[in-house]
C-alpha cells in the first residue's frame, strides 16, 4: 500500500481560553487574576487518507474540523500527536509541502478585495513559482471549467458570494495542489452554485488525482462527493468509514415511502408514520423487518409506488451525536 497522503495519529490541540463572570467587578478582578479554561479543540484523533481519496469530515460547529484542517495546513501548531501530509510535518512550512497543498475556507478569502482576481492570480504565480505557460494553461482551464471569464477582471469586492467563491477556488488551485482541504466551500451558496462547485471539485479530483478532505454542513455535498466520512464531535472521532455503512451501522431502521391507489389510509400497522404528504406516506420500520413489511404492504394494499431508503444522512449524523451524549 502506498504511503497515506494524510496521516494523523493521536492528534491533539488545546487552547487556554480566558473566561470570567459578567460585570465590572469581575472585569477588574481579571486584571490581576486572569482565569483561563483549557479547551480541547481536538482530542486524540487518528486516521489515514490514501492518495486520491476524497473524505467528508463532518461535525457540528465547534467540533474541531477547522482546527484539524489548520493543523494539517501548518497554520496551527499541534499540542501533541502526529500529523503528516504528503510525508511532511505541516508546521515546518517546507516549501515542497506548501507548494503541494491548498486550503479553501468558505468564510475566508485569499484574493485581495480591492483588486481584480487576475492581479492576485499573478501574485500566486510568483509565490508558487508557476512557469508562465503552465500558469496560463491552468488558469484558463479553471476559468473555463467554472465559467468565470467575465468575473476575473472585476475587483473581488464587486462579486457576489457565489462568484467570489468560484474565483477563490481558482486562486487556490492555480498551483495544482495534490492535497486539497476544503472547509465549507459551499457555505452560503444557492443550490445551483453548490452543485456547480461540487461538480468542479469532482472534476478536479478526477483530472489531477488529488486527495480531498471536505468539511460541509450540506449533506448533499458529502453524499455527492464522498464515499468515506469521518464524523467528529467535541474533538473526537465518532465514526470513520463508508458513508453507506454509516446509516446501516448507526440507524436501526429504514424508511418506506408508499403511495396507495385508494389514497392514504391508516398504515400504522406496518410501521411508525413519520410523514404524510397527500397520498404519500413515509413509514419508519425496523431494519430487520423491512423486507417482510414491504412484502406485506405489496400484498395487502393497492400500491402505486413504493420506495425503501436508508434514513437521511442528516438524521443519521444527528443520531451519532445523540449517542455520544448518552454515552
Amino acid at each position, binding site marked *: 500500500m502506498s504511503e497515506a497522503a494524510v496521516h494523523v495519529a493521536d492528534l491533539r490541540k488545546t*487552547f*487556554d481560553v480566558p473566561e470570567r463572570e459578567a460585570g465590572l467587578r469581575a472585569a477588574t478582578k481579571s486584571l490581576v487574576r486572569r482565569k483561563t479554561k483549557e479547551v480541547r479543540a481536538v482530542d486524540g484523533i487518528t486516521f489515514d487518507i490514501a492518495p486520491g481519496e476524497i473524505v467528508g469530515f463532518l461535525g457540528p460547529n465547534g467540533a474541531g474540523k477547522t*482546527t484539524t484542517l*489548520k493543523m494539517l*495546513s*501548518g*497554520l*496551527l*501548531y499541534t499540542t501533541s500527536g502526529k500529523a503528516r501530509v504528503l510525508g511532511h510535518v505541516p*508546521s515546518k*512550512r517546507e*516549501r515542497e509541502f*506548501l*507548494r503541494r497543498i491548498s*486550503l479553501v*475556507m468558505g468564510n*475566508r*478569502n*485569499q*484574493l*485581495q*478585495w*480591492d*483588486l481584480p482576481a487576475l*492581479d*492576485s492570480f*499573478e*501574485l*500566486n*504565480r*510568483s*509565490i*508558487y*513559482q508557476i512557469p508562465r505557460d503552465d500558469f496560463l494553461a491552468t488558469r484558463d482551464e479553471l476559468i473555463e471549467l467554472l465559467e468565470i471569464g467575465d468575473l476575473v477582471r472585476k*475587483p473581488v469586492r464587486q462579486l457576489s458570494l457565489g462568484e467570489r467563491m468560484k474565483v477563490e477556488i481558482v486562486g487556490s488551485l492555480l498551483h495544482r495542489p495534490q492535497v486539497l482541504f476544503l472547509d465549507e466551500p459551499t457555505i452560503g451558496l444557492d443550490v445551483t452554485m453548490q452543485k456547480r462547485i461540487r461538480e468542479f471539485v469532482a472534476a478536479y479530483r478526477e483530472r489531477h488525482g488529488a486527495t480531498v478532505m471536505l468539511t460541509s454542513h450540506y449533506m448533499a455535498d458529502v453524499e455527492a462527493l464522498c464515499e468515506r466520512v469521518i464524523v467528529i464531535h467535541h474533538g473526537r472521532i465518532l465514526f470513520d468509514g463508508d458513508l453507506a455503512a454509516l446509516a446501516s451501522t448507526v440507524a436501526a431502521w429504514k424508511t418506506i415511502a408508499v403511495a396507495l391507489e385508494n389514497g392514504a389510509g391508516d398504515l400504522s400497522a406496518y410501521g411508525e408514520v413519520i410523514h404524510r404528504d397527500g397520498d404519500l406516506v413515509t413509514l419508519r420500520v425496523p431494519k430487520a423487518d423491512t423486507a417482510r413489511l414491504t412484502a406485506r404492504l405489496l400484498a395487502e394494499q393497492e400500491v402505486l409506488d413504493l420506495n425503501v431508503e436508508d434514513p437521511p444522512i442528516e438524521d443519521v449524523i444527528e443520531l451519532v451525536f445523540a449517542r455520544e451524549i448518552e454515552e
Partner: protein
Amino acid sequence: MSMYGTMRAELVGAGGVVERNAYLTRRYIWWDLAWFAWTVANTLTIVFIAKGIEATGGSLNVNETMTTLLIGAVVWAYLGILFMFLMETVSWERWEGTIEYTFMAPLSRAMHLAGQGVFAILYGLVRATFLFVVCAFVFFDLSMPNADYFAAFVVLVVSSISFIGIGVMMSVLPLISPEKGPQLGFVAQGTLLVVSGVYYPVEVLPQWMQWIATISPATYALDGIREAILEGQGLTAMWDEIWPLLIIGAVSIPLGLWIFSRGEQYAKKHGKLKRSG
C-alpha cells in the same frame, strides 16, 4: 531545488509582494493624494513654528530653523510610512481576511517581509521627496544654496535598513494583539524620534535620553540629512553617520526577523492567525 533555484524562487516571491503592494497603492491613489495633503498640512504646522517665533520677537535664523524643522517633519512622515506598511503585513491582511493564506504561502517570512519593506522604502522615498519639495519650495521658498541632495538621499536610504529592522519588530505586535497591536507602531515611531532630535538638537535632552539617542538610527539619519542640506556636506564627510546606520541595520534586521518568527510561533500556538483574532 538548488540553492540558486531556492534563492531565485524567494526573490521572485518577494517581487510578487512588491507588485501586489503596487497594485493596492494604484487602487487607492486618489486617497493617497488626500492623505498626502494632510501630511503637507501637518508638516506646515511644524515649519511655521520658526516664523511664529520670529513674529513674536524671537531671534533666530528663520531660513535655517525652518529647514531644520522641515527635515525633522519629513523624516517623521517617512518613518510613519515605513512602519505603516510593515504593520500592515499583519493588520491589513487580517482586515482583508487574507492572513491565513499569506502565511500558508511557500515564501520564507524573511522574503515576505523584505517584499513589504522594499515597497515601503520605494513608496516612502517618493513621498518624502515630494513632501520636501512641496513644503520647501512651493510653500516657503526656502534657500538651500549649499545643499547636497544626493548625499541626503543616500543617508535616508541607508537609514531605511535600520528602520525596516525596527519596523519588522513592531509588525509582530498586531500578530500578538489584533485589537491594540497596530497602535503601538505609533508609540515606537514617536519614541524613536523624540530621543533622536527630530525638531531640536539631541544635546538638549536629558543625559539618559541622549544615551538612547546613540543607538537610534533616526539620530544619525537626521544629523546626516541636516549636514547635507544645511552645510552641503558630501557623502565622504558623512561616514560618521553612515557606519552606525549600517551597524544598527545589521543588528536590527536579523533581530526583527527573529522577533517576528517568535510572534508567528506564538500566533500559531494560540490560534491568533485568523481574521477575528
